[in-house]
């Protein structure tokens, strides 16, 4: 039987600035499976980031419901959402959001210090190919390396889901591919359910499933019969 990690029902998010109402999500029904690598594809403003933020416990929906396994996230308060993020979710952002005053190892330790069953910080960095850069500060690393530190930081707590918002958006093709390799490896070896948001259509080839977004709605879902390895992708 297929296990769900996320399930949404009629998920709607309206941004109300007083004069203008923007429907970022407009009745999204979606199921995401345990262990899969899903790519959410769509243009800017199609609502994919909003969905990711709600799934990650950073935002609340205006209406509709959302579950993480059996946990109903819809009405959780700030404290419970903090707890949820701490225990279950790993985030990777387009702008790596590393703490500049902490070295690579220390940035990862930020998470391992508070997680219940973390891997060793050095081990996480080794998984992303940065075993030789443990004590370097963000300013001393390239963009690709910084993003890999961010991924190491996200996976170090052994999260059940890894949410990646345009992880290659700020990187050139070659560096971006290296980052995707890391994501793929983690999905394969750790079985972490991974959701990657991108507007880069090239990336969809590496996913188990591709979910297309347009105007706050799901435009279509397709499964890749054959997955392409990241090093075969370029843009």
């Amino acid at each position: 039987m297929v296990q769900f990690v996320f399930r949404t029902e009629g998920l709607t998010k309206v941004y109300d600035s007083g004069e203008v109402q923007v429907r970022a999500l407009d009745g999204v029904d979606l199921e995401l499976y345990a262990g899969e690598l899903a790519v959410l594809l769509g243009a800017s403003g199609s609502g994919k980031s909003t969905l990711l933020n709600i799934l990650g416990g950073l935002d609340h929906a205006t209406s509709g419901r959302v579950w993480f396994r059996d946990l109903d996230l819809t009405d959780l308060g700030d404290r419970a959402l903090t707890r949820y993020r701490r225990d279950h979710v790993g985030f990777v952002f387009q702008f790596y959001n590393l703490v500049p005053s902490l070295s690579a190892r220390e940035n990862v330790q930020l998470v391992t210090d508070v997680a219940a069953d973390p891997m060793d910080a050095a081990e996480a960095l080794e998984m992303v190919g940065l075993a030789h850069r443990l004590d370097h500060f963000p300013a001393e690393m390239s963009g690709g390396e910084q993003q890999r530190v961010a991924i190491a930081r996200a996976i170090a707590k052994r999260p059940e889901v890894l949410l990646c918002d345009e992880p290659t958006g700020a990187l050139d093709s070659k560096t971006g591919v290296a980052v995707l390799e890391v994501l793929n490896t983690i999905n394969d070896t750790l079985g972490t359910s991974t959701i990657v948001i991108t507007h880069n259509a090239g990336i969809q080839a590496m996913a188990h499933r591709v979910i297309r977004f347009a105007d706050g709605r799901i435009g279509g879902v397709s499964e890749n019969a054959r997955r392409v390895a990241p090093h075969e992708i370029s843009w």
Partner: protein
Amino acid sequence: MQALDKKLLRDFQRLWVQGVAIAAVLACGVAILLTGIGMFTALSDTRAAYYERNRFADLFVDVRRAPDTILPAILSIDGVAAVAPRVQGLAVLDLPGRVEMATGQILGWPEGDEPALNAPLLRSGTYPARAGDVMVNAAFAEANGYEIGDGFAANINGQRRELTITGTALTPEFVYTIGPGALMPDNANFGILWMTEAALAAAFDMEGAFNHLALSLALDAVEQDVTEAVDLLLDPYGGLGAYGRDRQVSDAFLSAEIDQLAAMARVTPPVFFAIAAFLVSMVMSRIVTLDRAEIGLLKALGYSDVEISIHYLLLAAMIAVVGVGMGWALGTLLARTMAWQYARFFDFPYLLFRVPPWVYAVSGLAALVTTMAGALRAALMAARLAPAVAMQPPAPPLFRRTILDVAMAALRLRQTTIMILRSLIRWPLRALFTALGLGAATASIISAGFMWDSLDRVIDQTFDQSMRQDAMILFTEDVPLSTLATIARLPGILQVEPQQMHAVILRHGLHEKRVALEARPRDADLSRVITPDGRAVDAPPGGLMLSHRLARQMDLGPGDTVSVEFLSGRRETHDLVVTALVELHLGLGAYADMDFLDRLERRDARVSVANVLLDPIRTDDLHLALRDIPALSGLILISDNRRSFEATIDANISVVNGIYAAIAICITIGVAYNAARIQLSERARELASLRILGFSRGEVSGVLVGETMLLAILAQPPGWLMGAGIARALSNSFSSDLYAIPLVLTPSTFATASLIVLAASFVSVMLVRRRVDRMDLVAVMKTRE
């Protein structure tokens, strides 16, 4: 309005809390400058006007009994413009409705017209015209609730006289009205009385003579020459040596106050301006960093470097304008409060309170210039940004490994703690100045707070250890020692001890000083000389014991010989050996053994003052009995003295402490709030990241609160040092011939100061913390730095 001007206004709107916090510090500097110079000007102008209109004299001389016939000779001295002779003396006052005696300084009122010099200013009623008339100083009348026509009795040179008040007046001679032996003005117990010269001369047996002379000098007169000529003429008649305004008690106190105001206006404001400049520099640099992309864009659009620099300087100027406005308002208010304070201590007929326009201009300009100086670095930074570079996101700040990292690793600190420490190490100058700013706040509280303990020490040493008598009985002239036996038989007297006061001039090399030489019997128990460590010491027979301050001024040490000219008795000059030095808080003490002086004078023992211990339940009987003792010129109750001293000090120090604490809180909020805001703006992303990673609000705020509070705590020891330094400087600057404020610093002073500053820092940071709680995580993460 141009788009850039609109941006300016909107930027200021956005920054207003930070702007006001800086403006408040600036306002403190402006306000103190205004108050200091304003009050300095007000007091100097008032003094100058009052002295001129009421013909305050330049020289004063007391004499035993000089005939009026000597006056033409004095008037013909080169440089003397006018003379005003009079008879004066002390009297014991028997006031209706109260048992305790008061003391009066009675001054003769010339026939016909008001005195040529030191003319009193009539406040109500008329001048004294008949024998029983008396005009009193307004403060005395007010303190005792007297109206014109009220009466009281006075024991004038042994004769009881009933007097009727005909008028009240003020005089430039007694702007600061302090009675004999008193430490503070006490208007209920000490009054200035004017009686007709004829009546007074008869009472003191001074017909055709005078015992006090005031002189005014011509513009080109040399004071020293006139003094010597006057002394030469009056010497045969028992002249006690002419002295200038610097030794006239009232003017000496007034001058000391005016000097202090000038010092305050000179020393304090620069500190505030420096802190404000630092804050402006810190905030403006941050704004330029945040506006980086906008600056690039503006340059790409064709704005020049100069236009952009001016844009940021104007933003700082708006802060300065707010600060100056606040400072002017606060300063005007503060100056009025102080004027009210002064009115309580100084008896001026009017206060020419006018802060000159140039003071407003100068304080405003000073504030503006320091603010501009603070903003200059940021403005130049904006000018130097190349447009192409500016539109790129800045590189992350560079952190490097240092030796401290090894220590931090060894300590196994939490990552959030490491973030705090690295930030301090990465921007050491900013951390240093923030800490110095907070330290300055602590120092400000200490520099006022130490006065409590210091004056407690003075009160303890003066009243509990040195002046242990309940009262001092003053005689019009020295009386034989046997009089003490009579005193001892009066009701309520438990113990009595003699004391002598000699007016002497000490000379050593080029130094010359007129002092009161006190002589006591060995092992005196009531009035004692106490060293700072609490020991009672007696002047060794065979020489003089001097206070350290006097010895330093005279360049004397133990074993040196000093020439002592006695201005009373046989008026002889003796060379005496300095046998001991002693540390004292009050007065320029010179002491001798009583037997030794009596032998030197070749006379039987005499007494100028009887120190007595009283039975408290029989005090009233004593007052009644004393009214009938002729040779009495006054009774000083030490407890009254102490009470007024303590009350004055309490009121004064409370106000001063309140002002300094308010200033310290202003500085703390200005520094801590801005430091935390800048940190928040630099760290918004980091802090949002931490929240997303699952750190709670408390943990995330911990980083923000932690850094500022860590700096606040680190700031305390340097703050204590600065505070102790300022306290030492103040205690030195307060020292005069009249008194010295000892430097007493207790742990509680430091603790109180630190607690206030830490609490104010905490509140400031908590205000910023609310912003962490309201932070929109998604928005923060989406925006590019």
